[in-house]
C-alpha cells in the first residue's frame, strides 16, 4: 500500500484544476491542455521530455494522419459517394440517420481503432449535416459515442481490450476469446444509440446555439432567408408531348412565366448543360434542374405537365455544395456594370452563371431581372459552378460577399485516395504495424499522388484536437508516475472492504470510468487490472469478470472531451465541455448499468 506524498497531492490538485477549467471554460479546453503541458514540468511532476511526449504519441500522430486521409477522401468526392447510399437507406429523418451511421461506425470501430472509424466518418457527417441542414451538433456526438462503444464489441475493438489478455497472463487466468465480449458490447451500443434517439433532444446541444447570438451568425441566418426566398434546386422532366402544337419554350420563357431559373439541363442523349443561355429551347423528354420557390415550381410542373422529382438525381453531382453554389455579388463602385441591365451584361452567355435575384435596399427582385438597370450596391445572387464564379470574380466588376472558398474537387484522384486508404487499413489489420505509422503512410501516399497538396494537408489538421490530446497525456503520465493512480485505486478498493461481488464490480467499473477520463485508457487498464484481479480473488469474485469490467469501463469515457474521439469531434461539432458533461453523464450511467447487468446475466 503506497503512502500519500506531496507530489500525489500536487497531481490531484492539477487534475482538479484541469477539470475545474474544463467546466467553467474560462479558457478553451485545448488551452487548458497546453496549460497542463507547461505547468507539470514546472512543478517537476514530469520531465520536460515527458511533458511534450504527448505531441508525438501514437494517438496524436494517428489523429493527424487520419484527418489528412479523411480530407483526401473528401476532396476526391469519395465521401460524397459514400454519403449518397447512406442517405438513400437512412432517409432524411435525423433519428434514422443517427441510428444508421452510428451502427455503421460502431461496426467498423469494433474491428479497428475507434479514432480511425470516427475520423473517417467526420467528413461524411459534415456533408450530411450541410446538405440536410441538420445541426451538426445533433449528429456528431451520438456518432462519436457509438464509435467509442463499438470498441467494446470485440476483443480487438479498443486498446484496453487488446491488452486485457496479456495483463491476465501473470495470474494464469483463462484468456478471453475474440467474441466473448460481443453480447455486452452489442447491448452497450444499442443502449447508447437508444439513449440518443429517445433523449437526444434533451441532452444534445441545440445545434450550436452558443454562437447564434453573434452578429456573424445572424448575418448567416439572414442570408439563408434570402436563399430560402429563392427556393432550392429542383429536378424535373418534361413530358414527351412537351413541344407538340405550341411555340418553342425557352429557358427565358420559363423564368418570365414562373419565376423559375433553369440552371442546368440535359440535352439528349446525355449532354449536360450548366447555365443554359436564355434562348435555349427546351425539348420534350429532357431533364431540367431549376431554382425556384416551391409554389412556383409546383405550378410550373402542373401547368406544363412536367414530372417533378423528389430529389436531385442526374444533377446531384453538379449541384452538390462542393461543385457549385449560390453567391451574393455586389456591383462595385466604379464597376462598368452600373447603369447596365443584366440583359446587356449577359452573365449567362459570358460566364455561364445564372442570376437568380437582385437584392436592393432590403427588397428582393425576382421578376424580369434582365431589364433591371443595375446600380452600385445592388447585390446579385448568382448560381454557377465554383470554377465559373471564380472567373467572374477575377474579372473584378462584381465584389463577392460570400467567399469562394469552396474547394475544388479532384474526382480524378478518387482512385488514388481509395488505394491509399486501403493500403493503410491493410497495414493495420493484416500486418499489425503500429497505427500511427500505417495511417501516416496512407496520408503521405495521398500527398505524393497529389490527392491533396501538403499545404492542404496542414490546413486540414485541427490543431485544437492535437493539443487537447497532446496536453492531457503528460497529466496521465504524472498521475501514474507519482503513484497517484495506484494510491487512489488502493484507497478506494480498501475502503469498500469485502462486499457482494456485484457491488465490487460496480465500484471497479466506476473507478475505471473516473481513471479513463483523466489518464489514458491503456494506462488505466494496465494500472487497474492487476489490482482488481487481486481484489476479486480476495473477495471470492470471478477475477476474469473483474478484469473484463476494467477493460470495458475504460471505454466509458464520455463525460469529458478527453477521449480521442470526443476531442476530435469537439471542434467540428462546436461542443463545449458542458455539452459532454450533460450527454456524457447520462450515457456513462447507462453504460455502467447495462454493463454490470449484462455481465451479471451472461457470465
Amino acid at each position, binding site marked *: 500500500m503506497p503512502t500519500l506524498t506531496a507530489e500525489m497531492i500536487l497531481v490531484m490538485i492539477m487534475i482538479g484544476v484541469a477539470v475545474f477549467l474544463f467546466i467553467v471554460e474560462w479558457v478553451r479546453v485545448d488551452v487548458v491542455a497546453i496549460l497542463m503541458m507547461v505547468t507539470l514540468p514546472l512543478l517537476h511532476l514530469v520531465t520536460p521530455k515527458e511533458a511534450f511526449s504527448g505531441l508525438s504519441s501514437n494517438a496524436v500522430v494517428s489523429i493527424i494522419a487520419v484527418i489528412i486521409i479523411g480530407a483526401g477522401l473528401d476532396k476526391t468526392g469519395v465521401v460524397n459517394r459514400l454519403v449518397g447510399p447512406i442517405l438513400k437507406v437512412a432517409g432524411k429523418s435525423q433519428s434514422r440517420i443517427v441510428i444508421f451511421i452510428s451502427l455503421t461506425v460502431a461496426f467498423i470501430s469494433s474491428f479497428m481503432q475507434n479514432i480511425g472509424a470516427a475520423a473517417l466518418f467526420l467528413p461524411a457527417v459534415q456533408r450530411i449535416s450541410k446538405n440536410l441542414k441538420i445541426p451538426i451538433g445533433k449528429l456528431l456526438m451520438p456518432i462519436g459515442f457509438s464509435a467509442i462503444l463499438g470498441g467494446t464489441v470485440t476483443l480487438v475493438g479498443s486498446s484496453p481490450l487488446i491488452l486485457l489478455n496479456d495483463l491476465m497472463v501473470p495470474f494464469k487466468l483463462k484468456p478471453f476469446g475474440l467474441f466473448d465480449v460481443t453480447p455486452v458490447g452489442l447491448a452497450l451500443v444499442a443502449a447508447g444509440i437508444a439513449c440518443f434517439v429517445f433523449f437526444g433532444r434533451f441532452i444534445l446541444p441545440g445545434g450550436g446555439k452558443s454562437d447564434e447570438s453573434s452578429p456573424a451568425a445572424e448575418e448567416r441566418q439572414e442570408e439563408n432567408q434570402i436563399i430560402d426566398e429563392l427556393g432550392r434546386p429542383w429536378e424535373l422532366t418534361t413530358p414527351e408531348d412537351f413541344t407538340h402544337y405550341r411555340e418553342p419554350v425557352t429557358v427565358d420563357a420559363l423564368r*418570365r412565366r414562373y*419565376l423559375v431559373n433553369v440552371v442546368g439541363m440535359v440535352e439528349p442523349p446525355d449532354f449536360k448543360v450548366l447555365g443554359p443561355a436564355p434562348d435555349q429551347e427546351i425539348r420534350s423528354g429532357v431533364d431540367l434542374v431549376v431554382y425556384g420557390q416551391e409554389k*412556383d415550381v409546383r405550378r410550373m410542373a402542373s401547368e406544363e405537365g412536367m414530372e417533378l422529382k423528389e430529389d436531385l438525381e442526374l444533377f446531384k453531382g453538379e449541384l452538390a455544395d462542393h461543385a457549385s453554389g449560390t453567391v451574393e455579388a455586389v456591383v462595385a463602385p466604379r464597376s462598368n456594370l452600373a447603369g447596365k441591365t443584366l440583359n446587356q451584361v449577359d452573365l449567362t452567355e459570358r460566364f455561364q452563371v445564372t442570376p437568380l435575384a437582385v437584392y436592393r*435596399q432590403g*427588397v428582393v*427582385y*425576382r*421578376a424580369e431581372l434582365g431589364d433591371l*438597370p443595375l446600380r452600385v450596391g445592388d447585390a446579385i445572387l448568382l448560381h454557377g459552378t465554383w470554377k465559373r464564379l471564380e472567373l467572374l470574380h477575377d474579372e473584378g466588376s462584381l465584389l463577392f460577399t460570400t467567399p469562394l472558398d469552396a474547394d475544388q474537387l479532384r474526382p480524378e484522384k478518387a482512385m488514388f485516395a481509395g488505394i491509399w486508404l486501403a493500403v493503410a487499413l491493410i497495414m493495420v489489420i493484416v500486418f499489425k504495424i503500429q497505427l500511427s505509422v500505417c495511417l501516416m503512410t496512407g496520408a503521405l501516399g495521398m500527398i505524393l499522388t497529389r490527392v491533396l497538396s501538403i499545404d492542404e494537408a496542414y490546413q486540414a489538421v485541427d490543431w485544437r484536437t492535437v493539443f487537447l490530446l497532446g496536453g492531457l497525456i503528460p497529466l496521465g503520465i504524472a498521475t501514474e508516475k507519482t503513484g497517484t493512480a495506484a494510491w487512489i485505486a488502493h484507497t478506494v478498493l480498501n475502503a469498500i472492504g469485502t462486499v457482494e461481488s456485484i457491488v465490487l464490480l460496480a465500484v471497479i467499473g466506476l473507478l475505471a470510468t473516473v481513471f479513463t477520463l483523466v489518464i489514458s485508457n491503456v494506462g488505466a487498464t494496465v494500472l487497474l487490472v492487476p489490482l482488481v484481479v487481486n481484489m476479486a480473488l480476495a473477495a471470492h469474485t470471478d477475477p476474469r469478470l473483474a478484469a473484463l469490467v476494467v477493460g470495458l469501463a475504460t471505454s466509458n469515457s464520455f463525460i469529458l472531451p478527453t477521449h480521442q474521439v470526443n476531442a476530435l469531434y469537439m471542434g467540428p461539432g462546436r461542443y463545449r465541455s458542458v455539452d459532454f458533461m450533460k450527454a456524457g453523464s447520462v450515457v456513462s450511467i447507462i453504460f455502467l448499468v447495462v454493463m454490470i447487468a449484462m455481465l451479471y446475466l451472461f457470465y
Partner: protein
Amino acid sequence: MAIITISRGSYSKGREVAEKVAQRMGYKVVSRDVLLEASEKFHIPEVKLVRAIHDAPSVLERFTHGKYCYLAFIRAALTERAVKDDLVYHGLAGHLLLKGVPHVLKVRIIADLEARVAAEMKRENLTQSQARALLIKDDAERRKWTQSLYGADPWDASLYDLVIHINQLTVDDAVDFIVQAAGRECFKTTADAQRKIQDLALACRVKASLAEEDCVDIAVTSEFGNVLVYTKQDDRRAHRLEEKLKPLVKGLPEINHLELRPGQPFPPEAC
C-alpha cells in the same frame, strides 16, 4: 374570336356602324356602359369620367391627378370587359386603351365635315356656323387629349388597321368590310392573345386600385400574372406604397407575384 374597337368623331356614323357590326357578329357592344361601370365601381360621378376622357389635361391636372385616376378606372373597366372577348367598343381611344393586345381590330370611321355639320344641325337644332364651330372644337379637344396622354394623333391613319370614310361607302359597306376583316386569322383570339389581355386587365386593375388609394404616377406591367409596379418615387417613399400593395395582392388571386420597382423608368408597354 376578336375585339373590335371603332374610333370615331362625333356625328361620323361610327355608332351606327358599331351597333350593326355587333349585331351581325353576335358581339356585345360597349361604349358609355364602360363609363357607367367604372363610375359605379369606383364611386365617382359619370360626368367627371366623361370629362376625363374628353377634355385635354389641364395645368391643374398636374396637382390633382384627377384625369390620371379616371382614366385608370375607365381602362380597368374596359379591359375587364375585353377579357370576356367578343366585343365591339366604340368611342374614343379604344385602340389606345387596349394597346399591346394582338387580337384587336382597330377601325376608324370618318365622315365628311359637311355631312357631320348637317347631322349635328339636325339633331341639336343649331345654325350651321354654330354646329361647325362646335365640331371643330370637339375634334381639336380629342386630338389634344390623345396627344397629351399617348402622344398620338387620332387622325393618324397608321394607328388603325382600317380607316373607312363614310361618304361614297355606306354604313352597310363599312360593316361588311369590318366583319370580313374581323374574320382574318390574325384577329383570332389565341391562347397567347387571351393571356395578354388578361395580363393587361390585371395590370389595369392594379393601377386603378392604387389610384383609388391616391397612389398616382405609377406604371404597372403584368406578364403571366407577375406584376411589376413602377414608381418614380425614391426607395424610401416607395416603402409606403409597398404597404398598400400588400392587401391588394391578397384581394387579387390572379396575381402570381408582385414587385415594386422604385426609381425606374416606365417601360413603354406599361399601362
